[in-house]
């Protein structure tokens, strides 16, 4: 029993802990998710801070090249384009197209060199794929004040993205400038933050603040996801990508990414936030459990003490009882040998009462012992052929003087005649208890009715009184040991185990003892005992 209790308490402690742990893990996960999202947002914001510098580089090209070619036209324009190709580090090739789309510059190469020819072919295909820019310039709406804005075209050749700047000129002439890819990449790198800078130098320098305290690096990634440039703390192994932002057009397929170790970046309190409440709850629950366990154990020890006390008392009573019965019997036989006299007539019935009462007491005591020990030796039944009505009468007889004294009318009814095979001792234990209770608790009803019958191979005995009865809510408890409905000192004396003993006896016989619903006042107990087949002659029936 204590082990089961211990398990129950452990379960009681574990269940909320598991629940709490689970919910806090979930909460933590949610929190981490939110923190991660927030972190991603933060990192994206930081990455976005680097982005305008990149855009500024492209804008600068647009501005510089537009300015250089702004007012030029005709042969001067062609010379300017040749000069650009030759001297401007950012210019790789230039194109000059007429309104018809005819390529004025570059001219078809005279040289045999394959690289020159390939480049020419590539530039022709670039000219063919140019965006419709001139149409926008001379549409009827804008004819009065043509807005000749340069236009960027992303174009793919050689290693990847190439930038081409188209500039519409007067008379629908279009100038295209293919930028030197490596150069604008180098320029983008030059404006990007550096990894570690020399703080002692006089030159102001941009540093990568988001990566100062944690391991992580930022990257500029091209349209094929190749790293172009990296800055920050770069460990030997690659880290997962935590955030990315897209670079503005014309580099629209390029991205700025942040790679880092999430563990070092996210809030580090995860372990304590989860363990602290768990441990606190564990402590509270465990101390509560310990309290419950110890108090329950104390209660149980008390009950056990009560039982063992009752057992000891009963045991102690046995010997004097036996002696009383022995001497009562001796006195009776002594009296039989005396001459008849008035004294003898008076004494004999008194000795009989002594003998019967002591026998009843003996039965009670052995009932108590049996109940306490759960004695297997006592559990053996001794059924024999009995006349039910007669047996009941015998049991009632010793009570009659008491009933009479208390003014209780005892009514009898037997709905069966003949022999049944039951253990009369069981019947006795039960009835003695029930009648004793009537005498003790239901005397005010001044009535008891004992009826018997046989039904479906069961002997049925009912004991009904007109006493105060038992409230419905107590009915379940009256059969429990030491359950007394009134514990006040004014209550009638009693051990509190009578009905428990009676029920245990009935169960041992395979029968039952229940409270029958009856019209108040009073209470009506019904004992059912299964009947064994009748035995031959007077031998025990089995």
């Amino acid at each position: 029993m204590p082990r089961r209790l211990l398990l129950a308490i452990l379960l009681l402690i574990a269940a909320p802990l598991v629940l709490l742990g689970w919910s806090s893990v979930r909460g933590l996960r949610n929190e981490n998710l939110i923190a991660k999202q927030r972190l991603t947002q933060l990192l994206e914001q930081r990455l976005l801070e680097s982005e305008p510098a990149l855009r500024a580089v492209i804008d600068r090209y647009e501005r510089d090249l537009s300015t250089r070619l702004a007012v030029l036209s005709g042969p001067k324009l062609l010379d300017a384009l040749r000069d650009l190709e030759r001297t401007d580090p950012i210019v790789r090739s230039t194109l000059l197209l007429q309104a018809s789309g005819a390529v004025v510059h570059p001219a078809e190469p005279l040289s045999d060199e394959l690289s020159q020819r390939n480049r020419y072919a590539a530039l022709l295909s670039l000219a063919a794929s140019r965006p419709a820019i001139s149409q926008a310039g001379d549409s009827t709406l804008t004819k009065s004040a043509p807005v000749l804005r340069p236009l960027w075209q992303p174009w793919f050749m050689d290693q990847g993205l190439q930038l081409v700047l188209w500039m519409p000129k007067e008379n629908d002439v279009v100038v295209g400038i293919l930028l030197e890819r490596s150069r604008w990449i180098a320029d983008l790198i030059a404006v990007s933050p550096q990894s570690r800078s020399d703080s002692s130098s006089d030159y102001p320098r941009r540093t990568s603040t988001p990566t100062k305290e944690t391991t992580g690096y930022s990257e500029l990634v091209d349209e094929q996801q190749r790293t172009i440039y990296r800055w920050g703390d770069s460990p030997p192994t690659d880290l997962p990508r935590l955030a990315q932002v897209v670079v503005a057009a014309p580099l629209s397929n390029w991205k700025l990414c942040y790679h880092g170790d999430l563990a070092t970046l996210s809030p580090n309190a995860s372990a304590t936030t989860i363990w602290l409440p768990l441990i606190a709850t564990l402590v509270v629950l465990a101390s509560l459990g310990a309290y419950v366990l110890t108090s329950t154990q104390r209660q149980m020890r008390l009950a056990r003490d009560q039982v063992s006390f009752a057992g000891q008392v009963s045991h102690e009573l046995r010997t004097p009882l036996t002696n009383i019965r022995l001497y009562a019997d001796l006195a009776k036989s002594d009296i039989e040998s005396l001459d008849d006299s008035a004294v003898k007539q008076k004494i004999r019935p008194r000795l009989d009462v002594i003998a019967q009462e002591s026998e009843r007491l003996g039965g009670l005591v052995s009932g108590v012992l049996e109940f306490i020990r759960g004695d297997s030796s006592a559990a053996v039944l001794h059924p024999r052929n009995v006349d039910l009505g007669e047996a009941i009468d015998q049991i009632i007889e010793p009570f009659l003087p008491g009933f009479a004294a208390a003014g209780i009318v005892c009514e009898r009814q037997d709905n069966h005649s003949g022999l049944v095979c039951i253990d009369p001792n069981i019947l006795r234990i039960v009835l003695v208890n029930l009648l004793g209770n009537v005498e003790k608790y239901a005397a005010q009803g001044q009535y008891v009715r004992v009826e018997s019958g046989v039904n479906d191979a069961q002997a049925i005995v009912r004991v009904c009184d007109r006493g105060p009865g038992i409230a419905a809510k107590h009915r379940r408890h009256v059969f429990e040991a030491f359950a007394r409905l009134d514990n006040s000192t004014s209550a009638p004396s009693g051990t509190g185990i009578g009905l428990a003993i009676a029920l245990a006896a009935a169960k041992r016989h395979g029968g039952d003892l229940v409270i029958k619903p009856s019209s108040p006042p009073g209470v009506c107990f019904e004992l059912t005992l299964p009947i064994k087949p009748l035995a031959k002659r007077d031998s025990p029936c089995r």
Partner: protein
Amino acid sequence: MTQLRFFLAIAATMSLYGLTPTTATADQSVGVTATVSTPTMLADQKNMTFLRVALDGPVLIADAKRPPVNVAIVIDKSGSMGGPRIEQAKLAAIAAVERLRNNDIVSIVLYDSVIEVLVPSTKATDRESIIQKIRTVQVGSSTALFAGVAAGAAEVRKFLDRSSVNRVILLSDGIANVGPSSPMELADLGRSLAKENISVSTLGVGQGYNEDLMMQLASASSGNHVFIEDEASLVAIFNREFDTLMSVVASEIRIDIKLPESVRPVRVLGTDASIDGRNVAIPLTQLYSGQNRYFIIELEVNAAAAGKEAKVADVSVSYTNTDSKVRETRQMAVASQFTTSAEVVENDTNLETLAYATVLVSTERNRMATALRDAGKVSEAQALLNINAIDLFKCAASCEAKNVTSVVPMLKENVVENRLQTDEIVDSEKWNSSRKRMIEYQNGNLQQQVYDGGYRSSSTKP
């Protein structure tokens, strides 16, 4: 190559006396010559000819006065540089910084997977603190070569003076693996930097670097490319690089060749020149003291009648004299005679020009041999090298016969080099190393580089 020997001899002598080679004084200017290999051509048929435009940097005696240099030293500190290599690199950088003067500008950029500007572009007045910083360098992980060069160039650009000497010196022993990493992308960057008169010298250390990438980057920006097999020679090589750097006599060089209608440009040998119709423009960032820099343009001349003289090309070379900061221009026209006599044509052949053209043509074949060897075609590659050796040898023989001795040592050296390579390329295990030597040799020829990694010094150099 002769010039190289000569220069090295002088440099060696001068360093003996604790002197450094310096630049031209105002009265000494760059010599420009333009010649065709066939001053007389056969009449009434199309003729192929080589036009040679040569720039001779004047060799000058030591002078404490030299133009300031603006140099970015870009050092690879990726993991492979660990150990003695980074230590030697640091020593080399320190030695270089010690040679600077107060009005020079220096910056030091380190890169692994990310860029670190160790010393932002600054006047080299407090050299001791720069050296202190160099001493703190430790190795990192991967190799962001492109960004390293870009950052180095950005540092140089802060104090960019186009008429001065601007250089990024890249020291690397590894393959670029973060950022753009193809030889073409690096060449594009080099070409772009050359337009700003910034050149990139690439020093490849050990067996692990990508020689194609390093060579093309240097070549596109007229920088030097050197294969440093043993890091122990790093300090010496760095010193030589600085020797050349400090001996620049002309910068911002523009070479323009205008061809008449009757002449067609076929190609420019070994140089990525821009050919726009009949205008050929050749980029060159600088000319060193004592350097004989030349370009060979293959031309196709239309048929002309015998006895006629026809213009082949107008050559214009302009440059800034780094000492006087004066912009100087040389212009000349090259013409040819036409005759019906093959003998006259033969006799009139400019053997010197032909010899230089032969060297460049053989160098182009040498590059093809490298490609063939890459494809595992050893015998085909050997056949090409053999053709080279024979061609060069024949050329040397006819030069000797005609008493044109100035080019003979150069031709013979190339014969020897091609012969040696014929044997060296066989061994697959040594191919990595031989290939780096081959690339260095090719670049040396194409750029008339004034010094090399010194690999052949024991075998072929006097």
